[in-house]
């Protein structure tokens, strides 16, 4: 791309109305000369994310969290929060009923195991499809309102799903007992291909049972794919429109956009992410219960997203990891574990410290999480990612004085 340099070219530029505007000379602004574009940065982010996720069994070791069942949870709830954030982070519409899609995804996956095959691919696809259909329905109703009314509508509809699962829909959900895979289920595809299941009934992929490390790697790979797609959505013109709707819906309407289909689309995509997470829960533990759809589960994903940083790509995943870590590791700490942690101290101060700290661990892990959440919301409204960004800025301030030039805000 070069500016018109000769007099003839310049004359052409002026006289020819069809002269390509992109070749006109603009004041120096830098993005073209910058060695790294947004696209390069995104690839770097995806590579880094892949390394971090697949490396979890190693770097979680010192934190005591490197066992597959917990790492599966990190990845699954990471997908759940990622999907929730596509709606909340981009458009500002706070759904308080996303757990409904999680539960629907789980039920759909178990039904796929019961009716079709123990292979997980149909289960995942079926769960996402059913979640999408549910999201079209719930979204169509809820998106007639915005703000708090939207939140209440989603909450009400999700609670309706929860209560239906316990009452009218018992033939589908098996009520309080929970839906489980049985040996004499039809499984028509397995019967046709003559695959006979022996041993425990667990979802499998090409003969590999999805428990333990294989289960974790399945969730991890799907998390990476989900991350990549979320990043693409955030970087797309579609993502910019969603941000514009969040910023000023009024202007959006007078600018010639109909916000409704945009909102419904992202609501459905977000519901499908939740359905995928629900399917993975059912795959790694083939039992679906309605408690997964309760409003506390919807609240949890809101906490995860805000804790990590709403609107950022990696914040919600970080938030999901922290909450699941607290729930599983912090809650297991007891007084004797604390005494051994403080064993380097003489007995008196050790006792004192244990007394002080013990209400905050074990059963009291909610207390610590609550305090952490309050501190983050008050001092870092942008979540943990904002904290990281601020530290990063402090570190690099002296290094470079070049201004940010990307179209999108940095994540």
């Amino acid at each position: 791309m070069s500016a018109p340099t000769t007099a003839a070219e310049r004359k052409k530029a002026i006289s020819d109305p069809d002269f390509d505007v992109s070749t006109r000379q603009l004041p120096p602004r830098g993005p073209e000369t910058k060695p790294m574009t947004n696209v390069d940065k995104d690839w770097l982010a995806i590579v880094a994310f892949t390394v971090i996720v697949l490396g979890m069994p190693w770097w979680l070791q010192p934190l005591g969290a490197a066992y597959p069942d917990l790492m599966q949870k990190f990845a699954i709830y990471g997908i759940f929060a990622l999907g929730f954030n596509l709606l909340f982070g981009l458009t500002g519409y706070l759904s308080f009923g996303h757990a409904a899609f999680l539960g629907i995804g789980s039920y759909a996956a178990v039904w796929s195991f019961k009716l079709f095959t123990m292979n997980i691919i149909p289960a995942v696809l079926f769960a996402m499809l059913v979640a999408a259909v549910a999201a079209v329905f719930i979204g169509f109703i809820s998106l007639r309102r915005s703000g708090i009314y939207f939140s209440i509508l989603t909450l009400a509809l999700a609670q309706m799903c929860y209560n239906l699962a316990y009452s009218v829909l018992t033939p589908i959900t098996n009520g309080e007992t929970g839906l489980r895979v049985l040996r004499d289920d039809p499984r028509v595809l397995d019967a046709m291909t003559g695959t006979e299941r022996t041993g425990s009934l667990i979802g499998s992929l090409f003969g590999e049972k999805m428990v333990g490390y294989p289960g974790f790697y399945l969730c991890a790979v799907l998390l990476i794919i989900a991350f990549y797609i979320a990043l693409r959505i955030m970087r797309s013109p579609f993502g910019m429109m969603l941000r514009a709707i969040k910023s000023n819906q009024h202007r959006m309407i007078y600018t010639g956009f109909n916000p409704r289909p945009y909102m419904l689309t992202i609501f459905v995509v977000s519901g499908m992410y939740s359905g995928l997470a629900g399917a993975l829960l059912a795959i790694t533990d083939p039992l679906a219960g309605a408690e997964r759809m309760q409003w506390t589960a919807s609240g949890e994903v809101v906490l995860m997203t805000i804790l990590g940083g709403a609107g950022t790509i990696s914040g919600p995943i970080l938030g999901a990891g922290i909450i699941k870590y607290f729930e599983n590791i912090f809650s297991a700490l007891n007084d004797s574990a604390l005494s051994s942690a403080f064993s380097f101290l003489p007995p008196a101060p050790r006792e004192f410290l244990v007394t002080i700290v013990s209400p905050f661990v074990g059963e009291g892990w909610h207390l610590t999480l609550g305090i952490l959440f309050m501190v983050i919301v008050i001092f870092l409204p942008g979540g943990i990612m904002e904290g990281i960004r601020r530290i990063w800025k402090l570190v690099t301030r002296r290094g470079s004085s070049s201004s940010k030039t990307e179209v999108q805000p940095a994540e």
Partner: protein
Amino acid sequence: MSNAVLHVSNVQKSFGGLRALTDIDLEVEQGKTHAIIGPNGAGKSTLLNVCIGRLPPDSGKVIFAGQTITGRAPYEINQLGVARVFQTPEIFPDLSLLQNVMVPAFAKRDGTFRMNALSSLEKEKELRAEAEHLLEEFGLLHLYAKQAASLSRGDKRRLELAMCLIQHPKLLLLDEPTAGMSRHDTNRTIDLLQRIKERGMTKVIIEHDMHVVFSLADRISVLAQGKIIAEGAPDEVRGNPKVQEAYLGGAH
């Protein structure tokens, strides 16, 4: 008048017992700048809101480029080629200036909805170049990566104007485009608007500042208490005793 781009015909609008607009007939000719003036509360903004689809009229209709637009959604009216600058700048405060200008450019190109969730913004080089070019023309290019919320009020107004112009609308409605601006900024805005006029864009402008009105308008309608009490070329209106009584005399 066959040359009319906008034809407001017999429009009535009441809010409760208050008659905001009574028997409004207005014709705006292609390529002309039509100013609507009148004292506060005369119904000027209501009239624009009816034209843009924000308020439905009680009766009467608005015809734009041969199509009746009353009862249509605001985004459909915009897609037909009507853009509006609001009295308080309506921009996207959380987006960068460049994005602010690119969003309407997408609306112009892609229509009311397009599913492009997996394409990349980086590929939209043409739209970006167009947006940058317009920002340059408006003297805002050096701020292009800034959040629009950080702009001064005058810059926000100019940004909003740029957002409208990137759509190359057939009709531009301006609601007090210079309200609250310094004299310097007002003159810059007049320059900008005059330049648009040379491109042949039709404009309807509501304005209190007579300096702005008389430097831009080809035709003036005077609105008082919901009625058009006078209409004509600037000089005719200036000399009209009814106008002086209702507006110029009353206000000063």
